[in-house]
């Protein structure tokens, strides 16, 4: 092969790989384009304000009501409640794995956390529906076990692995010299963790928490099967709710093709997409802006 030939092959390969690498951006752009083309027509019927803040979701009545406020509130509620359970559990498990557990114990627990992440969402939804719901109903004497609380609990166990494994990476990458310095000054191991290790890894932990919440708000099968399905603004922790993904998944099959209901479901998809996009951009921003670089940034 001549030198010139080699050079041109190199150039072609570099361009080829660059082209392929942009596929992800292209795909993301296409997702947005198609969501918007299929979702925007609903705003000829309803204004954006009425769609987002409208309290009534009766897409099949005559005349239909397309207000997704209750769905948005439901999505935020299940995400918030599940975060309240998943953040402490996930971060504490991460601290245990990174700082306390012996090598052997961590070697067993870490794969277990990974397997928890690998459980299909439909299985967790099924578990919540046939085992947890009757249990809650019996023990707490509720009218239905399919409610906000049950859905949040199931979602928590779906976001714990995300929160745990990203936090653990962040904690693990804190330089050992920081720990040794703190211990040498007479701090106990716990004081070292809370005053030195956690502040040093807080940006990674924050990223983990946001990604975990992003996973919870977009999760479909669990809220479809376990949340109860009532399109109302919940008044208590034990009310049935209908988060956005559940509404889309449950109704798309019945919605007449390119009818108003169909457009409204795509528009709900836009709102859901924007929520997760926001979460992910914030996570990305935190991860880059407050990156822990060795010991110098403390």
């Amino acid at each position: 092969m001549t030198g010139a030939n080699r050079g041109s092959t190199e150039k072609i390969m570099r361009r080829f790989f660059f082209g392929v690498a942009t596929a992800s951006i292209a795909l993301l752009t296409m997702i947005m384009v198609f969501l918007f083309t299929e979702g925007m027509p609903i705003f000829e019927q309803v204004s954006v304000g009425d769609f987002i803040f409208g309290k009534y979701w009766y897409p099949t009545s005559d005349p239909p009501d397309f207000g997704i406020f209750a769905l948005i509130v439901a999505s935020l509620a299940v995400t918030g409640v599940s975060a309240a359970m998943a953040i402490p559990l996930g971060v504490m498990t991460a601290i245990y794995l990174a700082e306390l557990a012996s090598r052997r114990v961590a070697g067993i627990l870490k794969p277990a956390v990974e397997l928890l992440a690998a459980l299909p969402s439909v299985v967790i939804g099924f578990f919540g529906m046939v085992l947890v719901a009757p249990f809650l109903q019996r023990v707490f004497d509720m009218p239905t076990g399919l409610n906000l609380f049950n859905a949040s609990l199931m979602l928590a166990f779906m976001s714990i692995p995300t929160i745990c494994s990203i936090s653990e990476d962040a904690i693990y990458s804190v330089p050992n010299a920081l720990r040794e310095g703190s211990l040498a000054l007479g701090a106990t191991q716990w004081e070292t963790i809370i005053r030195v290790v956690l502040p040093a890894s807080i940006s990674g932990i924050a990223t983990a928490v946001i990604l975990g919440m992003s996973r919870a708000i977009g999760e479909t099968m669990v809220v479809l099967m376990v949340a109860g399905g009532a399109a109302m603004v919940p008044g208590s922790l034990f009310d049935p709710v209908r988060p956005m993904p559940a509404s889309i998944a449950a109704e798309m099959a019945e919605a007449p093709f390119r009818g108003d209901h169909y457009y409204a479901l795509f528009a709900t998809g836009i709102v859901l997409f924007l929520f997760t996009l926001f979460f992910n951009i914030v996570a990305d921003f935190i991860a880059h802006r407050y990156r822990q670089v060795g010991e110098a940034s403390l």
Partner: protein
Amino acid sequence: MDITEDQIRQGEAEAEEQSRHKATFRAEERSRIQEAAIRARGRRKMNQRLVFFLFRAAAAITVTALFIIIFFMVKNGISAISWEFLTQVPRDSMTKGGILPCIVGTALLGLGAIAVAMPIGVASAIYLNEYARAGKVLRLIRLGINNLAGVPSVVFGLFGLAFFVTYLKMGVSILAGALTLGAMSLPVIIGATEEALKSVPNTYREASLGLGATKWQTTWRVVLPAALPGILTGAILGLSRAAGETAPIMFTAAVFYTPDLPSSIFDEIMALPYHIYVLATAGTDIELTRPLQYGTALVLIGMVLGMNMVAIIWRHRLRRRLS
């Protein structure tokens, strides 16, 4: 006034007495401080023990959740599993018979998704790890990948419906479902491949370049073969994730019921996750088919966790070999 020797002696004695007094006082104070310090240290240790107990409890809860879910699925599902269950088609409005079409469907969708995502994902990772230089473009590509990873599965389903099923006129089909799942697994494959490429020591690259090979020759003949096991591990993880997903195939590939095994990639198909959902929420007799639901869930868990276990063990061996 004259001072007698007596007075001097007395004064000295007094001074001595005082300093002795001071010394004992200091010693007492010191030991008191030490005791307090020890007590405080004890309290701090107690705090530590309490908090560490909470950490252990949190880890225990997380792991117990996994085992509780698996335990109940196995306990309730094992009796439904039989050779007939795995090899026959559903009968009597899906209240009897097996789940063969679902197993075949899930396998086809998963493999199709990987066949789509692997070439694109591996090539993307090669660009990111071998060719790209730090800068705005790289940052943008990474932002795209991270955001793609965060797109909710049901939104992928909507996209698949609008683009593959409607716009490209594929209809509800294996092809549309596999493409949708492939789009969703892309970030998983890219991430795993990048990790595998990063674990190849730089000395490999330097040696190859030093012998006069070009960047592409180095990547193709040296880096990729060394990273191959890691890349395959990622493929297995991507496959297992695609196989377990429900929302992306609801509008693009899966149907309630089709008695025949597919004969072309444009056929509709049954799939394990969707079958569980349908039987549990909209089946002919939800209570009667409960054992079938558990059985189907157990088969799905077995497939997914089995693949994950293989990947985890494989990766563990790899890491030991490299370190």
